[in-house]
């Protein structure tokens, strides 16, 4: 007999919520902003070889445009999709604060859920799968690097092969 875990009603459902699957099937913000001033940072997941890039365009300290490209699993893609939806229009400081909240959330700090806008609380299930936390973090780490790092816009590298 399959045990309770095999019925798909327990933690698995929590991990693969419909919200997450929707973002995966039709991600927002796919594609880097077409702007000469775009700052791009890339993250790779050495466990699976996936690579994700996030590109931002700043006007002053406001994120005017943001997008991502690359290949990833459902968790990496959904997380990137949610990211683009939430940080567009935020200031750099707001976005960095959000990135660090997401980081704490993914590491199991459930209290920050109330601070998280949009669909981000749907990532709650990821915290129970330590091997998958890295997938959800990729986009946020790339964002942090892209906006925090350099005063200079990064040169835009060739598109990541899908």
């Amino acid at each position: 007999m399959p045990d309770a875990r095999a019925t798909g009603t327990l933690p698995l459902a929590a991990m693969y919520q419909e919200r997450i699957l929707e973002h995966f099937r039709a991600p927002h913000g796919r594609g880097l902003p077409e702007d000469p001033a775009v700052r791009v940072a890339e993250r790779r997941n050495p466990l699976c070889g996936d690579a994700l890039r996030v590109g931002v365009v700043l006007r002053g300290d406001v994120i005017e445009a943001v997008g991502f490209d690359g290949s990833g699993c459902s968790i990496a893609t959904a997380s990137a999709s949610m990211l683009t939806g939430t940080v567009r229009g935020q200031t750099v400081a707001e976005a960095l604060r959000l990135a660090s909240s997401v980081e704490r959330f993914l590491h199991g700090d459930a209290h920050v859920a109330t601070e998280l806008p949009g669909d981000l609380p749907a990532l709650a299930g990821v915290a129970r799968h330590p091997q998958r936390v890295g997938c959800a973090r990729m986009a946020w780490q790339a964002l942090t690097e892209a906006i925090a790092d350099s005063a200079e816009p990064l040169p835009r590298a060739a598109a990541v092969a899908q």
Partner: protein
Amino acid sequence: MTTSLIAEGTTAHASLAPRHDFPLLAEQPALRYLDSAATSQKPQVVLDALTGFYATANANPHRGAYALSAAATDAYHAARATIARFLGAADPETLVFTRGTTEAMNLVANAWGAAHVQAGDEIVVTALEHHANFIPWQQLAKRTGATFRIVELTADQRIDLDHLASLLSSRTRVVAITHVSNAVGAITPVHEVVRLVRAHTNALLVLDGAQGAPHLPVAFDTLGVDFYAFSGHKMLGPMGIGGVIGTRARWAECQPWQFGGDMIEWVHDQDSTWNVLPYRFEAGTPNAADAVGLAAGVQYLAALDMAAVRAHELALLDYAHARLADVEGLHIFGPPPAERSGVLSFALADVHPHDLATILDEHGVCIRAGHHCAQPLMRRLGVSATARASLYVYTDARDIDALVDALVHARRIFGATS
């Protein structure tokens, strides 16, 4: 969810080795362990041999002039003889213990390669290799200025023997090839490779047996290769022990590569002389306990009979293929089962291998998702990762059924219904 074709408790496709021989599997009856290519589970006899060594014979081998040290030395020597016999080497002293295949390949690349490879020479590996049999040679080529050549694969990920033949010449100094691919399970036709390499070169021929020794009968003395490396932890033994068997002639061409205790004869102020084979290549306190544990593991395998191990895996592979035919959108990499070891490396359309592994984990099914330390192969497959289920002596039809049920569930979650 599909129901299993074979009910629990039927004897069709029962495991070859009783599950209750393996404490971890006995303790977790719902666990479906399908990652034996990464490491095997360990039978009680191996754990007993390990604790037995520490409880009754623990002393530093080769060192003390007292009975207990002699007992440790004897146990270590007996383990070497047992493992050499299991792998078909009549001369146990041609087996050098290492931590595993990785260290074995680094040993050969350094001990033989550094002394015999130079600029203008060519080193040949295949696109199927595990990083352990790829990087040591890539870096040796880089250090020496030799040319590093990679044999490409057929459409079903077998070594392209015509391409291999075309790369061989009098410049070829090393040919390093896997016996069985860990990533897709393809079995190398060793006799054909030996024939080609010997006909066209005087090259050193090294076989990576990490996935060969656990799953196929191996007779080193009739294989015709120069070195054969293996990892104990993939063949019921403990982690931290493995080795490499070589011909006496090739060992004689090797220089010591690690220095310290045990491997010396005399140490003078300005130079030293070396101990004989195999000790010359085993610097420092040996891993005697794990060698004793591995010896118990290979005795367990020998009692099962390696031909029966292969037949068991083949029967399960056929069963798995029949059941997996029901799963829409599944692509299995590698050659057909007759030319494949007990490995199912696959992609499920629209489902990332990482998502698959998580969903399967929730079903109690342990598979590996990733590049399997074979990035050159992944590039050629055009994927970043595959999902891999791998079989062994304790695998049975219930494990396969659980895999199939979980894959069907994964397809449901990702909404691909037909």
